[in-house]
């Protein structure tokens, strides 16, 4: 008497979760063991290669890179969660209402989304970041959400549209169910794997956008983030000076993180749409 659910922990999902854990565990807990003193100017030698005192070496101002990474990762992750989370939240509410209620609301939402999708978010983000100064990861996340809610809205709306045509929604209306009940109690549970996949993708998009801004030098430099680290490495000519310990670790972390998110979202997609399983 169980629901027919495909197995949750598929190999792809396991791989994705394992890769995420590899980043998330040190990323979330490392900040508590890191010594803030090591972030100070001249905490170690200048451009010191990895060694006993500085496992990931130091940069051109003598700051310890491991400490910077441990302090920066929570900020990067926060940007992703806030950016992706708010975009999906906004997209879910707008997409569900537009899809279910239809009419004028749907027309406005659909057209706004269609136009918004053809405007590259980075173009708007650059203008925003060049005009205002973004100081906290929270702000960065919210600003990114402003430019990335269109995609979640669009995909959730189309899912609701296809569900709405199903006969079970007609039957619920005949059973006296209110629109709110139908949208949130009946349609929503059907969309959970789908929403989860959308959320994971939105987190990846938000982190991607934040690195884009930070690499352009438009990040908030008061707070350490991995994107800022790469920007400083580029500015500090780390590449040409052969200081691989400066730029390589954040990139490796990003690669592991993005692959983890990618595998998890692929696995969630399969869960939401079992037809993809073959092939």
């Amino acid at each position: 008497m169980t629901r027919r659910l495909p197995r949750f922990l598929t190999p792809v999902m396991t791989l994705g979760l394992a890769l995420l854990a590899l980043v998330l565990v040190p990323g979330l807990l490392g900040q508590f063991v890191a010594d803030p003193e090591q972030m100070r100017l001249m905490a170690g030698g200048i451009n010191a290669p990895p060694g006993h005192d500085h496992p990931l070496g130091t940069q051109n101002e003598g700051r310890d890179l491991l400490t910077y990474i441990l302090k920066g990762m929570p900020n990067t992750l926060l940007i992703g969660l806030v950016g992706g989370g708010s975009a999906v939240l906004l997209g879910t509410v707008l997409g569900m209402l537009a899809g279910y209620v239809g009419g004028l609301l749907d027309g406005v939402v659909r057209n706004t989304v269609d136009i918004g999708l053809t405007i590259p978010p980075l173009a708007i983000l650059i203008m925003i970041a060049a005009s205002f100064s973004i100081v906290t990861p929270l702000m960065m996340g919210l600003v990114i959400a402003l430019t990335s809610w269109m995609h979640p809205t669009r995909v959730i709306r189309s899912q609701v549209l296809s569900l709405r045509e199903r006969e079970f929604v007609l039957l619920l209306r005949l059973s006296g169910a209110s629109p709110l009940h139908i949208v949130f109690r009946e349609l929503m549970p059907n969309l959970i794997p789908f929403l989860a996949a959308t959320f994971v993708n939105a987190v990846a998009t938000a982190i991607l956008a934040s690195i884009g801004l930070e690499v352009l030098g438009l990040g908030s430099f008061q707070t350490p983030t991995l994107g800022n680290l790469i920007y400083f490495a580029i500015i500090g000519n780390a590449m040409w000076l052969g200081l691989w310990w400066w730029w390589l670790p954040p990139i490796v972390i990003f690669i592991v993180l993005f692959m983890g998110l990618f595998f998890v979202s692929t696995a969630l997609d399969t869960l939401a749409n079992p037809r993809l399983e073959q092939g």
Partner: protein
Amino acid sequence: MSVDLLTLSDVHKSFSRGYRNRVDALQGVSLSVAAERPQIITIAGESGSGKSTLGMLALGFLSPDAGELRFRGQEIAGLRGQALRDFRQSVQAIFQNPFATFNPVYPVDHVLRLTLRNFSTGAEQASRETRISDALRAMHLDPALVLGKYPHQLSGGQLQRVLLARAFLLRPQLIIADEPVSMIDASLRAVVLANMLELKERHGISWLYITHDLSTARQISDTLLILYRGRIVEAGPMERVLDAPQHPYTQLLIQAIPRPDPTQRWQAPLDWQGDESAETVTAAASGCAFYARCPFRMDRCLEAVPPLLATPADTQAACFLHEPGAARPG
């Protein structure tokens, strides 16, 4: 004079598809369901005849472009509050695809409980479980085999009967059934049809049975309406319409239906006038929609849409052949 339960008068409905297409689903359909005497009214038509649109209009899920739909004399579009609840309680439905009529994330009884919760008074709530079990038993379903099951664990026939039980919980006066057996295997189809008949005979529930299948209509209906391209072309008591069809379209339709008997095989190919050239279709736009396929077509049929006329078989047919003085087909 008593007020009819449901009346449609001269209902029109069209849909626009894309930039250019406009599909006229219904073009002036009238019918009424009497309140006092239970009956099964079959609306039969091919795909594209507008029969499903008619069902959606009658349930209040669509509103007509022109014409009126009334429930006990009140316009359906204007129903609010208690009047709307009364309408929902009195006019229920079952649908074509029983597998899509349940929310896959809940057990099948979820929607039965929901129906009771939304429609019954506090005093009735206590007996909810008993009422659900009774309704299932009335559909010859064992509650123990159904309750708590998810949709994919039951057969199409069982699911359709659970849906019948759900409608029956409300003791409606009319159930609108759009192709309720077309997706159910033949060997289980009879059970659903028998249930429908039983609900009429034992519990006084009327049916609007919407189907493309005249063979099943034969088994249960009292009245038969034939729909062709959005218009009723023939109407009357079921047996008379099927045994002595008066409209050329109905005649063709019945000839085309295979009989399940190898000794009753088709003798000659169907007399088929498939003149669907663009000129013919355009010419017939203001006249009879069946002109392009009709073996008896006359110039007159291009000029006006034939109204429903009385026939010798005591039915009505929308064909000029039944105008007083016209030469009738053999």
